[in-house]
């Protein structure tokens, strides 16, 4: 049984990163605070994983101001979207192989 583990994206090994990416797949932009609330996580944890995804160039960061409050929003890049789809495909294949194997 050949399992395509090598196809699984290392950048998505962390659960939170995969969750962030799922949200950005279906929303053009999503802001930091809404993400924090939705994923029920801490400022520091979320920020560090967002940094990680940004480093991979999977997401883009937009910094704007709402009045005087800073408002940071995130957007998935094409590279990130492709990587996410490939990762899901790999997960699906894993399930199928485990069923037939």
């Amino acid at each position, binding site marked *: 049984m050949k399992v395509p583990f090598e196809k699984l994206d290392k950048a998505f090994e962390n659960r939170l990163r995969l969750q962030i990416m799922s949200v950005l797949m279906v*929303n053009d932009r999503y802001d930091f605070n809404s993400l924090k609330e*939705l994923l029920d996580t801490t400022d520091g944890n979320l920020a560090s994983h967002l940094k990680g995804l940004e480093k991979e160039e999977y997401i883009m960061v937009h910094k704007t101001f709402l009045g005087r409050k800073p408002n940071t929003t995130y957007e998935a890049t094409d590279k990130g979207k492709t990587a996410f789809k490939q990762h*899901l495909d790999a997960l699906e294949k894993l399930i199928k192989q485990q069923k037939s194997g």
Partner: protein
Amino acid sequence: MEEKEIKDELASIRSLMERSSKFISLSGLSGILAGIYALIGAVAAYYLITTNTSRVYPYHGYYSFDHLFNSLVGQLLIIAIVVFVASVGTGIILTNRKAKIKEQAIWGSTSKALLFNMATPLIAGGLLMFIFLVHGYYGIVGPSSLVFYGLALVGAGNFTFTMVKYLGLCEIAIGLIAACLPGYGLLFWAIGFGLLHIIYGSMMYFKYDR
């Protein structure tokens, strides 16, 4: 990774995608209740119309507000407003309750998008109908309220259950039929706001609420 682990992962991804982009806390029960309020309102309106001695003459001119609100049209307008406020109030209370169960913020980015997309056709349509009403074009209100409400639902359907979109299309169709058959405005209004809401609300209730 175990198979179950992967399946959980995929399920959580799917749920996140839905929760982050769609407002899934709309209550089906509030749809049923809104339909019942509309039917009660329609019965009251029918009673008012049939017992009213002073006929409303179609007068395509300008009515003073005083005249407008003391007339039959004014009383019908009050019924419509009471039905609207009761429906929206029930909707907010029940949706708030469901949002707590579903752990979705009632005032988040999805509900804001939903409200904005609904409010635009509703406010534009409402103002237009009010202007026509002041000019004495009563017949236009029934059909166009259905059409504008339908448009609001089609827009809202992108941000909540897809079923809302189909309800909107049905409302538009009924509004257009009503426009072809003047004189049956109240009947179509009862079908559109009463019957359709009850059917849709029950479907939502059995599919998602329980």
